[in-house]
């Protein structure tokens, strides 16, 4: 694995006090917070910052990291000794390889969490595994029809000697029909392994939608732009529209303008309470590139008493 300089990540000196580290961390968290940051790589940066602070923010972990990192430079190959870090927690799912590998050999320290609920008895100590949180990106089509998506996670596994090592695991996940962004899918027993025979934790997957330039989603409602010709908008028409749930025949009312919304009730995401599909009409002008087209536009200009700027006083 490559050595990572967590001090560099947080922009502090190796001699920084715990207080300096905390201040630097908070400043960076604010700067790169995905909800407010305009940086394109805000998510990745936040992850790096959190990973660095997970180690440097804890005096014990920092001391061990300093010990190991002596003489190493960022990007250099790095192998921790086999008995490294036996007293530390794991990083969460999604943390970087370097962090995971540093802390992967270890038995886990009982945390104060409800999940910890350690039971000592019969000479053994049992503790359920921690839950893992990750996100899974699905297409809008999966939300409409259901489907199977794969996700790769690095998950700790017990080997034959009872040691825990990080393993890449590819999971195929059934996506139920009707899912909406932000919903959580719980997979029992797919989290961190338990300790001393305790049950494994659960895996929680937050549903995210892959962007699709054709559609926009708000909760269970779906919005779609539908281009129409000027005569379809003016005279009304029956048009075929490709929607996420298939092709539908839609009536464009006469006198429609760009921006008119047509609601197709229940044709949004088929959740328990199905959403609606909104078709946003956009009038598209044919180009005046041929003689005939120009003639037609000139005839309209001549024969129609039409002032599009009447309402703004022109």
């Amino acid at each position: 694995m490559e050595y990572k300089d967590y001090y560099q990540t947080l922009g502090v000196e190796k001699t920084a006090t715990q207080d300096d580290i905390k201040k630097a961390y908070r400043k960076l968290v604010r700067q790169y917070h995905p909800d407010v940051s305009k940086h394109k790589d805000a998510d990745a940066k936040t992850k790096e910052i959190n990973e660095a602070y997970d180690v440097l923010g804890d005096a014990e972990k920092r001391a061990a990291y300093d010990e190991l990192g002596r003489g190493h430079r960022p990007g250099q190959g790095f192998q921790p000794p086999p008995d490294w870090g036996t007293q530390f927690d794991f990083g969460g799912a999604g943390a970087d390889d370097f962090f995971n590998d540093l802390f992967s050999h270890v038995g886990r320290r009982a945390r104060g969490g409800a999940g910890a609920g350690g039971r000592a008895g019969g000479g053994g100590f049992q503790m359920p595994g921690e839950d893992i949180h990750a996100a899974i990106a699905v297409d809008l089509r999966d939300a409409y029809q259901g489907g199977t998506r794969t996700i790769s996670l690095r998950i700790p596994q017990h080997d034959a000697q009872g040691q825990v090592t990080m393993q890449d695991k590819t999971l195929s996940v059934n996506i139920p029909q009707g899912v909406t962004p932000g919903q959580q899918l719980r997979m029992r027993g797919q989290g961190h392994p338990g300790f001393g025979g305790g049950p494994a934790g659960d895996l929680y997957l937050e549903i995210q939608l892959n962007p699709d330039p054709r559609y926009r989603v708000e909760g269970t409602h779906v919005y779609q732009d539908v281009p129409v010709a000027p005569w379809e908008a003016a005279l009304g028409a029956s048009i075929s529209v490709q929607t996420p749930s298939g092709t539908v025949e839609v009536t464009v009312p006469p006198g429609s303008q760009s921006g008119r919304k047509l609601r197709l009730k229940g044709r949004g995401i088929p959740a328990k309470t199905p959403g609606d599909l909104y078709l946003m009409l956009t009038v598209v002008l044919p180009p005046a590139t041929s003689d005939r087209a120009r003639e037609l536009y000139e005839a309209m200009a001549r024969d129609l008493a039409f002032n599009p700027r009447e309402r703004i006083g022109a």
Partner: protein
Amino acid sequence: MHDDILTGVLLEDVALTLDELARACNVEPDWVVRHVHAGVLGEGISVQVTSWRFRSNDLARARRLLSVERDFDANEDLAALVVDMADEIRRLRARLRVLGVDPHIG
């Protein structure tokens, strides 16, 4: 590498109990109880603690509250205000997208 096909349950279909939510957040149940009683978690939840049930929104909100509290040593009201404001930003950005505006450019 494994290739298991997993079927999960949505928290909208089978909601979490108090203990399950606490475990999913790696906190004591008391943390959840305190935040529900403070009115910053579990909107519309029943009075009876034993019948408390938490869905996707509650889990995401609890984890975000926890992260603000831990990152900034914030108290629960301040953390709730930050999370509420972030929610409002997300809602407005989603609205902008619906209206055809890229919120990161517009």
